[in-house]
């Protein structure tokens, strides 16, 4: 018999992880939202209940899909590439990709697909340009582990670290414009001034086609 994770509908959906909360704050009420790699559905449930969005999710793991169904969400099992291809152009106002960019084989393709099926996209990712990561590499000589993604380099699925600056340049190259920018340091929103790459552990961006 399958053991189900304890995923009763969240009694206090306002208790969201800070990076998810930062994403949720960007989404307007009543919009159409697709959450890619929606995991156990915590963010999507919050958006459906609190912001009355029309929410859809794509999730690869059986455990995640079962948890989402228990929360009463509409979720498809599948990988992002397959999942996105089925949606007609501009089916959503927002397509969300939280903490998943770092695991993608072909980020350009996924980002462009996100901006095909959605009018705008939201991405969140860990920033390896943070000063602690830089010092760790300098002084210990080891690849740093991001504070909100505690995973070693050899763990599966493999991840490809990058920084806020890397991502900004990449977006320019592939014709994507970064609009709103939220920066967090270990879960707290920070004012970084010009030192975005140095002072943030996590970035949350809204994107549109340039």
């Amino acid at each position, binding site marked *: 018999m399958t053991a189900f994770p304890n995923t009763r509908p969240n009694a206090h959906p306002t208790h969201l992880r800070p990076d998810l909360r930062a994403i949720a704050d960007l989404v307007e009420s009543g919009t159409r939202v697709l959450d890619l790699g929606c995991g156990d559905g915590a963010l999507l449930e919050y958006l459906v209940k609190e912001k009355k969005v029309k929410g859809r999710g794509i999730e690869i793991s059986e455990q995640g899909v*079962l948890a989402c*169904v*228990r929360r009463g969400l*509409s979720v*498809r099992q599948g990988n992002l590439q*397959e999942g996105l291809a*089925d949606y007609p152009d501009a089916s959503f106002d927002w397509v969300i990709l939280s903490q998943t960019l770092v695991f993608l084989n072909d980020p350009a393709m996924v980002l462009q697909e996100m901006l095909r099926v959605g009018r705008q996209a939201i991405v969140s990712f860990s920033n390896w340009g943070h000063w602690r990561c830089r010092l760790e590499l300098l002084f210990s000589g080891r690849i740093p582990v991001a504070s909100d993604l505690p995973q070693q380099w050899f763990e599966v699925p493999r991840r490809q670290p990058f920084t806020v600056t890397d991502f900004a340049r990449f977006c320019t190259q592939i014709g994507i414009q970064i609009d709103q920018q939220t920066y967090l340091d270990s879960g707290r929103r920070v004012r970084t001034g010009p030192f975005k790459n140095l002072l943030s552990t996590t970035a949350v961006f809204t994107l549109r086609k340039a």
Partner: protein
Amino acid sequence: MVTDSVGNVETQFYTFAEDEPFCLESGASISPVVVAYETYGRLNADRSNAILICHALSGSAHAAGYVDGDPDKVGWWDDCIGPEKAFDTERFFVICSNVLGSCYGSTGPLNLDPLTGKPYALHFPVVTIGDMVRAQAKLLDHLGVDTLLCIAGGSMGGMQVLEWAAHHPKRVRSAVPIATTAQHSPMLIAFSEVGRQAIYADPFWNQGDYYDQPRKPDAGLAVARMVGHITYLSEESMHLKFGRRLQDMEKYGYEFQTEFEIESYLKYNGLKFTRRFDANSYLYVTKAMDYFDLTQPTGSLAASFAASTHIKFLAVSFTSDWLYPSYHSKKLVSALTAAGADVTYLDVRSTWGHDAFLLEVATMTHLLSSFLDRLVREDAIAAPDGYTPRPPRANDSGSKTQLAKLAETLA
């Protein structure tokens, strides 16, 4: 585990098309038509809590509870239909009917042809999944159910679910196709044909004319069923269930008697099937499945669901099902997504092959009850008059782990 039953039930019969014949997709017609059905639970005040359950190839209207006062004569999906089960009969009005062409009370080849006074046999017209569903629609009219809260079924039952969603979308709020396909594949047609050939090859089949004969084409029907059973298992489940174990023997006998457990299992099930199913019905029902193809007439599956975008779908497949492999369901989910419908989909990890849809009770219960809870919430579906929710169970998995943890902490 939930053990509640709807208790003793009685199969009922609805007769229609007595004056005007019931026209079939083939152009032929039948008059009159009888549909055997069972219902469990009660309709609510605005008749919005009805659920139709569709059975597979050899199923019947007897889906839950038991008949003839015999607790051993249990319905085929009793695990999921009953008080507090996935299809909660305290909250929902659940209907299951026998398909046209079958041999469990709905009109089929073994019934009397009013023109000749003899059984129809091969004079019974070939029916389709579409015809079966239109007969179910007549039954719903009779029961005063205009719109179904949900329609669910596995295998051929899933084909009926999809037929309802594609061709009678206004009467469906949600659809649960399980371990099924929108287009019967060449491999599925091939297996159907092997089963039919086994029946044709039996001399007692006699061109379908055997109802007044002392012997029936049992050998042919048994082989057909044996082939079927192989396709319902997976290689892994055969390894687990039977391995190479011998039946009542220590060593090989070097002869052609039944030696391996798997042989004995197939023979037993083949024989058992001949006592409950009609060979001609097997021909008709498998033929109906072979014709099933929702990509027609346009060639696009998405186009067939263009008017079904209001329906909430829950599609389920099983990783080890090689008869209706997961890619059939994935194609369906892609088409429904492209059409703009709301689809939830899961490919459940299971070793049970096609049979998994009846055996993975815990996962199916989780999916179905959560999905139905969502429908009830979103569409504000009322319970029948006098319904009082039971207090939450003390032994469900969540509180059990919590209790275990508490016990650990205290100890």
